[in-house]
């Protein structure tokens, strides 16, 4: 993968995938539509989704599921199909970069399978959470689900660079530590690459910016919980874009008020002070995700023939699916419209 990432690509390859993504982006639910969705009940939301890109998945799954489960499964299936489509319609470097980025979902799936198997969930329940969009396909994950023991599942990854991390479960490591190490492995394996071409640099910078956001979320979340610095430091992902590992460690040792002052000049801080001091962590996370997405949209329009428009589309698609899921689950649990709205990331 490293040798591939440094290769140069033709402008036509970017032009093609960016044009396709631009069309796909137009099909995302416009921000004004969320006001309508918030005033609908669950059945109306399902009907609304039937008039959008999610129709195929809703129709396909309607005989098996209903209500919030139907929406949940349809959204996951649609997301994985969109990602698979991006891989299908791209070639060369764009394809490699997309696959590399989507490896995030491999780790999501592996974590869910291990967790599900460890705690005795049915294969159907685990399967419902899988988004087979990365290096491994649906059949591979199904074959993992068919395995009886955790050991067999871990051994299926023998020879992979993250096998040593998974192996720790067999030697008594805690699942939470292994999960964090897998996430760190995902980010560092990409961000640690040296960018030989401008195209690869855009991609690596994107990941490094995501690391800044991830680290900031982790530090603030654990700080708000009153976790001591020595427990926060191992959770910090190296190779941040602007927030280096050393700086992140220093932040972990500070008080909340000091942290805000220390990060005032970072790219991801914008009107964050009020939110950090007064709001619960989920809203701070939302604010950071919003800043992150807006920044990416802006960057993607500055570099139209690069991987950035594709990555920003993938980010927006994920945000849309999360928003729809929050609306559906919020409606099901009887939440007030205003409370649900506050949980959404509307870009």
């Amino acid at each position, binding site marked *: 993968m490293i040798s591939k990432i440094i290769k140069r690509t033709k402008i036509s390859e970017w032009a093609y995938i960016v044009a396709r993504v631009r069309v796909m982006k137009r099909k995302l639910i416009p921000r004004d539509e969320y006001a309508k969705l918030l005033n609908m009940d669950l059945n109306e939301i399902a009907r609304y989704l039937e008039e959008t890109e999610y129709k195929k998945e809703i129709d396909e799954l309607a005989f098996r599921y209903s209500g919030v489960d139907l929406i949940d499964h349809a959204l996951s299936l649609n997301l994985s199909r969109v990602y698979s489509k991006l891989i299908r319609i791209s070639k060369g470097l764009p394809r490699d970069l997309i696959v590399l980025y989507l490896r995030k979902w491999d780790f999501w799936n592996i974590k869910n399978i291990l967790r599900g198997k460890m705690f005795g969930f049915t294969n159907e329940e685990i399967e419902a959470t899988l988004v087979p969009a990365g290096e491994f396909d649906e059949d591979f994950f199904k074959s993992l689900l068919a395995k009886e023991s955790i050991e067999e599942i871990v051994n299926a990854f023998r020879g992979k660079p993250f096998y040593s991390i998974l192996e720790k479960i067999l030697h008594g490591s805690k699942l*939470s530590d*292994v999960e964090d190490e897998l996430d760190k492995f995902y980010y560092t394996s990409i961000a640690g690459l040296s960018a030989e071409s401008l195209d690869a640099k855009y991609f690596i910078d994107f990941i490094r910016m995501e690391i800044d956001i991830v680290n900031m979320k982790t530090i603030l979340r*654990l700080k708000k919980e009153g976790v001591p610095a020595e427990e926060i430091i191992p959770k910090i*992902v190296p190779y941040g874009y602007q927030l280096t590992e050393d700086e992140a460690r220093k932040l972990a040792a500070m008080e909340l008020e000091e942290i805000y002052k220390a990060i005032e000049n970072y790219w991801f801080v914008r009107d964050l002070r009020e939110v950090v001091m007064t709001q619960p962590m*989920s809203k701070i996370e939302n604010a950071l995700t919003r800043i992150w997405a807006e920044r990416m949209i802006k960057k993607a329009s500055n570099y139209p023939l690069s991987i950035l428009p594709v990555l920003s589309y993938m980010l927006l698609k994920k945000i849309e699916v999360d928003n729809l899921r929050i609306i559906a*689950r919020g409606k099901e649990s009887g939440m007030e419209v205003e409370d649900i709205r506050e949980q959404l990331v509307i870009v």
Partner: protein
Amino acid sequence: MDVQPTRMELIKLRRRIAMAKKGHALLKMKRDGLIMEFRTILEDAKRVIDEMVQRYREAQEKLALAMAADGVVAVKSIALSVDKEPSFTLKRKNIMGVVVPVIKREVVRKSVAERNYGVIGTTARIDEAVEAYEALIDAILEVAEIETTLKRLIEEIERTKRRVNALEFRVIPSMEDAARYITFKLEEMDRENIIRLKKIKGKKEKAEA
């Protein structure tokens, strides 16, 4: 009436009546006191139950959001991985002679290092759901405590009420009846004695004449 119509019995009876009346007044005061206490606690109970319902709603909402953001399996498995059962200590409190429980919960919240889920790949919504359920457990225990107190108070009020009624409508009236009967009997005996004495005196006078 099954009483000995003697002066001694009358004295004893009068003492018992006085004692019963005093007891009756005290029990009445206790009953009124308990009812007042019950009303105050009832107001608290309403507030605590409303709070519990509110916390349950909040916990459900937070859970729904956590499931939306982090996936159903992640949230469910976190719930299943809680191997510590909530434990609590039971103490006693005395309200006007009624022993009621005081429940204190021991914190079951795990530190981040002890928790069974990764931090980097999950969102704070999971933490918020955990926190909301912790608050719900506290609210449930508070309701349990106040409900038990109310039940005990109701039982005590009922018991006191029965005692007050028994004294007021049965014990004291029957003792007063008995006292009246003895008084009447004693007066009757006095009158009989006077008549008897008069008759003896009459016979004596006749014999002397």
